[in-house]
């Protein structure tokens, strides 16, 4: 865990974005609100982002995590592209979460590519918060 000089934990910085032509942003906004209420700093990059724009946002915001939401069915095209660009930018250290409508058969494929976790419909908000907190403590310990 990163600590401030005064001993307070530095809040996690997470970029939330939707890539591609997908106009459904209710879910990502609910997640944004939950992470905010859990004390995190949420950078909301919003709808219709290109993979290039998302990676630029992660770099310029010096984010610890990136959360992508896809309900369009384009996840097997767009998520690998984002991961590739992150690697090219030497941002492999940034944890990537995927949420939305992801068929179960695609989940192991995304995990194998380097996605830290896929959160599908029915995931509780506490589950996402707990995952981020636990993983961040482990990686920065």
């Amino acid at each position: 865990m990163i600590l401030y000089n005064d001993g307070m934990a530095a809040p996690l910085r997470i970029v939330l974005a939707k890539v591609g032509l997908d106009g459904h942003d209710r879910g990502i906004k609910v997640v944004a609100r939950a992470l905010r209420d859990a004390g995190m700093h949420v950078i909301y990059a919003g709808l219709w982002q290109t993979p290039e724009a998302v990676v630029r946002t992660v770099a310029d915001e010096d984010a610890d995590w990136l959360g992508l939401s896809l309900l369009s069915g384009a996840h097997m095209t767009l998520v690998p592209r984002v991961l590739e660009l992150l690697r090219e930018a030497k941002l492999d250290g940034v944890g990537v979460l995927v949420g939305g409508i992801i068929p179960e058969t695609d989940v192991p494929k995304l995990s194998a590519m380097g996605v830290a976790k896929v959160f599908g419909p029915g995931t509780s908000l506490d589950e996402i918060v707990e995952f981020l907190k636990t993983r961040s403590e482990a990686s920065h310990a």
Partner: protein
Amino acid sequence: MLDALWDGFRRRDRQALSRLLTLAARGEAIGAVRPPAKPGRVVAVTGSPGVGKSTLIGQLIAQVRGQGKSVAVFACDPQSPVTGGALLGDRFRMAGPHDDGVFIRSLATPGGHGAVAAHLDVLIQLVEAFGFDVIIVETVGAGQGDTAARELADVVVLLLQPESGDDLQWEKAGILEVADVVAIHKADLPGAEQTAAQVRSMLDMGKQKATPVLRVSSKTREGIGELWEAIATCELRRKRMTKAEARMAKE
């Protein structure tokens, strides 16, 4: 680690800049920032929540890039006093696509800092030393009380919108006094000219310097060029301060 970051910074590695900004924003010691080769123009954009600061900054980014200048933006949004959490949504409204000449950092801003994030002075020095020509600071949007912006900025732009209060609003002390340029945003809406007239008469009455009052619309792009022109030709506040300090030193 710090040495490696400074090495990267000198090689103009954006990620080194990004990392140093994070450390500085946390109040960690990063060492002295060298003065820039060429000072940038620091522009603070302030005004009430919903007046369109982020959207207008998006337009200004395009204007500045159109002239071949680079621009760094610090977008301040409020941080919860209860949880410490923050939802930083300004950059979403600063519509892209952006190239390497644009850098945007969102900053969570606790209350009590005069509507700008802590350590913003060091952050500005960093992007200035990195070589950005224009530095735009978006305040939280407290409006009336956020006069802290003037201590950091060369030019303070106040955004107002039509129907934003009767003429007594402008009599209140504070933000109107520190504005170098006043923009009546959403000027495509009715009532913009009336608001502009009220503000102009208020400024005249105060016999202050001639503060430009411009009608601007991000929707129609009316007045964007004129606004940038007013910002770009405004005498730098920091320079003015230095002159005033010199005068005081003489006396």
